[in-house]
């Protein structure tokens, strides 16, 4: 498995999440329904193989660990990401985050306001959960990629 292969698997999965699942999450009738979708999202993304999870890719949450890989296409100035987490709900939330930023240019990524987007999806509480789930750490890692 290479980064290229992971990227090739991630991009269409994100597109699918964006086109189908986001609406479903927004319209979920109860928390159970929302969480069932959230946990399916993580499964759509490819898993990063254990031996590729180098220490420098680790994004530490208080309760679970996640990994982020980054590819910058210099010709188009677009940023692409691959991520994995040991917790399914966190991976689902990170998948949503990723489908919002994947393929953005450096300027777009710098300006991106995740809080606002998550608010629109009724997911904002997950960002304010301090260091607990590692989402805020993942946001700053992604932002760091464009700086």
């Amino acid at each position, binding site marked *: 498995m290479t980064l290229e292969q992971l990227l090739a698997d991630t991009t269409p999965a994100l597109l699918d999440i964006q086109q189908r699942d986001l609406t479903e999450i927004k319209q979920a009738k109860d*928390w*159970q329904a929302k*969480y*069932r979708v959230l*946990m399916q999202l993580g499964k759509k993304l490819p898993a990063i193989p254990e031996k590729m999870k180098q220490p420098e890719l680790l994004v530490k*949450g*208080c*309760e*679970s660990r996640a990994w982020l890989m980054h590819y910058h296409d210099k010709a188009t100035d677009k940023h692409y990401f691959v991520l994995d987490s*040991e*917790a*399914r*709900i*966190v991976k689902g939330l990170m998948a949503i985050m990723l489908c919002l930023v994947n393929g953005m240019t450096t300027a777009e990524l710098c300006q991106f306001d995740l809080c606002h987007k998550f608010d629109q999806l009724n997911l904002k509480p997950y960002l304010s959960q301090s260091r607990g*789930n590692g989402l805020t750490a993942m946001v700053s890692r992604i932002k760091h990629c464009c700086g």
Partner: protein
Amino acid sequence: MPTFDVQQFRQQFAFFQQQPEWVYLDNAATMHKPQAVIDAVTQFYQQYNSNVHRGAHQLSQRATTLFEQARSTVASYINAQHLHEIIFCSGATAALNQIAFGLMHTVLRPGDRILLTQLEHHANIVPWQLHCQRFGVIIDVVPLTPDHQLDMAAYQQLLQLKPKVVSFSHISNVLGHIQPVADMVTLAKAVGAITVIDGAQGIVYQQPDMQQLDCDFYVFSGHKLYGPTGIGVLYGKTEQLARLTPIFAGGEMIDSVSFINTTFNKLPFRLEAGTPNIAGAIGLSAAIEWLQKYNNQQIVQHKSLLLKEFYTGLTAIKAIDILSSSVHNAGIVALNVDSEHPADVAELLNQQQIAVRSGQHCAMPLFSYLARPGAIRCSFAAYNTLDDVNRCLLALEQAVEILTA
């Protein structure tokens, strides 16, 4: 003798009236405060607030009296021989740091050994590590048996290495297992070791008797005994406290200062640098006085009833991996849902307003020993009810259903 009335007990906690929808099972992290504690702290700030031991006015004398009465309440609660054996500090972590720092050089010298156990949380590992590395002191660790109890045979073998200090928890913060502390102290003393007991979880389970237990140090935090946060107790026998080099300096701990030399005040003040947490000490004292209105044996019975119900309910839920033993358990259950990450289980419980802790509970060495990424921890207190137990079980069932769908 009337039985323990959990509803009457629970009514003393405003929190449960404010947040009736929550099931609070994170008591090993911190406990709720009864009205008696909140009132004592409020009353101090509203009526007596002043610094202690140094004011030239009556207000300060009143604050000093209340603060010293708090010391006396703690001393008699744990049956310390002398008032000056009670050192107020910010909590168990601060106390363990003081002991580890304080024994280096005065007791522990390069090449000496100390003995810890596999069950310890970071506060009873890292302070030792920090100072042992600097002073060249070796740390040995007592392993566990297959049912995750302390391996007493191994403990006795490791004592033959003649550790100068043995430091262990009264009750494991992850598994809830009660250690045979009395036997452990006796065995350690037989080889001449100084004994340190981390009572962070033990203090609320049982009223410890220092003179009977005969340990050299016992430490605990007020907030795990219905008291305020930021106050804790370092108990030490007089002759052992005298051997501690103060970790903090300044304020009342000083007798006289010149730029050539400083002489220190007598105990307990020598180890209480700076302005103490006066309101915290008064709050802790109020917690102890309030708690003594109840029969601890009945509370222990009530908690074991909750635990029994919880264990029975757990066996009916599929795919539950229980790490805690139901015997010698003080009311803490660490568990996982098979092949699921504890963070996911905890989040699904959180959605159902069940407060538990998840992760490695500041005990990473224990989890690497258990070969688990972490666990969720349900910890019960006297104010928890059978209804809390049942709601948690139902929520767990719902979590399992969502996770395995």
